[in-house]
């Protein structure tokens, strides 16, 4: 009996290190989003107040946000997954086309360990986080850059924050809709059946 035929056994999806990278990044991102909301949404600002404290929390959580991923680079499994997220094959084009046409059939959405949507999300959120970090630092250490830059940085920081908020909501929404995917991130293992259905080209 081959392993692939056994549908009850779990498949290893994420190492312990990878799960901790995700967990700590999620927690820091959560602090950033919540404090941002308390600084920005008038009703929340009115409710919470304590502006100096909220600003400090926001700044330090933002500064720490890339640290888990950088630390994760020490892990071979994490680096291997970054490699998988980076590379796009012909099947990813098929997946994206199906997504654009709202074709939800599994056979129209071939995917390796990560589908094309996850790959684009990972690359975009990494870039967006660094843009937020850079513009955030320009607003924090105001004497480091010329004045015009600071106003511009605020502009980019505000609009990108709104965009990240929407994209993150999508990320969390999709996780909420897929308990097995959440189990993979929580325990590191997914069912064989799920892996075959959602990631048909993945050969763990």
């Amino acid at each position: 009996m081959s392993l692939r035929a056994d549908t009850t056994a779990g498949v290893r999806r994420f190492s312990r290190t990878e799960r901790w990278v995700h967990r700590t990044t999620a927690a820091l991102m959560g602090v950033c989003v919540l404090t941002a909301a308390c600084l920005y949404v008038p009703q929340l600002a009115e409710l919470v107040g304590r502006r100096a404290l909220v600003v400090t929390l926001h700044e330090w959580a933002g500064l720490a946000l890339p640290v888990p991923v950088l630390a994760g680079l020490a892990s071979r499994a994490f680096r291997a997954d970054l490699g998988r997220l980076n590379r796009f094959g012909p099947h990813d084009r098929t997946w994206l086309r199906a997504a654009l046409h709202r074709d939800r059939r599994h056979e129209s959405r071939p995917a390796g360990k990560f589908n094309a949507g996850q790959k684009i999300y990972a690359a975009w959120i990494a870039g967006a986080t660094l843009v937020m970090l850079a513009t955030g630092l320009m607003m924090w250490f105001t004497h480091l850059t010329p004045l015009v830059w600071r106003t511009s940085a605020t502009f980019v920081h505000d609009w990108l924050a709104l965009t990240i908020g929407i994209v993150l909501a999508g990320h969390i929404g999709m996780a909420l809709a897929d308990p097995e995917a959440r189990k993979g991130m929580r325990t590191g293992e997914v069912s064989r059946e799920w892996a075959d259905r959602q990631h048909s080209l993945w050969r763990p």
Partner: protein
Amino acid sequence: MYKGVNDTDPEQRGTPVGRRVFLGTLGLGALGVLAAPKLQSGLEGLLGGAADQDPTGLTGLLPNGGGFRYYSVASSVPRKNADTYRLKVDGLVDHPTTYTLADLKALPQTRMVRDVQCVTGWRVPDTPFEGVRLSRLLDAAGVRPTARAIRFTCFDGTYTESLTLRQARRADVLVALRMQDKDLGHSHGGPVRLYVAPMYFYKSAKWLSGITVTDEVRPGYWEERGYDVDAWVGRSNGRDDEPTS
């Protein structure tokens, strides 16, 4: 060789689209910073127009959607009304005085229409403020010759502000009771706030409850956290906004 190719993970090969998306996002961010001044003025026009016809008020939540933003440094701010509100004038004065809201309303009122400029960048054009000139309250209290500055305290229990005596005596500095031709609401610092027209809006302390005449400037809340004490719009805090007064 066949076996060797098979051994390498096919998922590790292919076009590095991820890297391109990552670098592209960084590039767009940098481009955004460069193009921001142009984009910002365009969006302010667009969103300002939309906000005028928006009954939901959602446009106000968008960046550059226009209007005031609420900032409070305290955990919660008590509410004061005509019965409970008091404004105390003390320090280096001959006649320390406590005003009720009715007392302040009975004094001659001055109305001014100027732009409001926040140090964080937002600006609300042509905002009417109405209230008693600070100089009138100072004259009534009889400022002593040794006095050099004013310290303002607020009933949120935390915020403080300062002005030199010379700044405080300007005709465009008010103890404001009304804003946008309405009585000052709680979230705008009501029932009474300071209004320092020529300076960044953090000088216009909300929920004003104390005016203490002192012999030197004692930096206020944000000034202890790095903001300029002399906060002239366009000539301080490293900003070059158009002056408001």
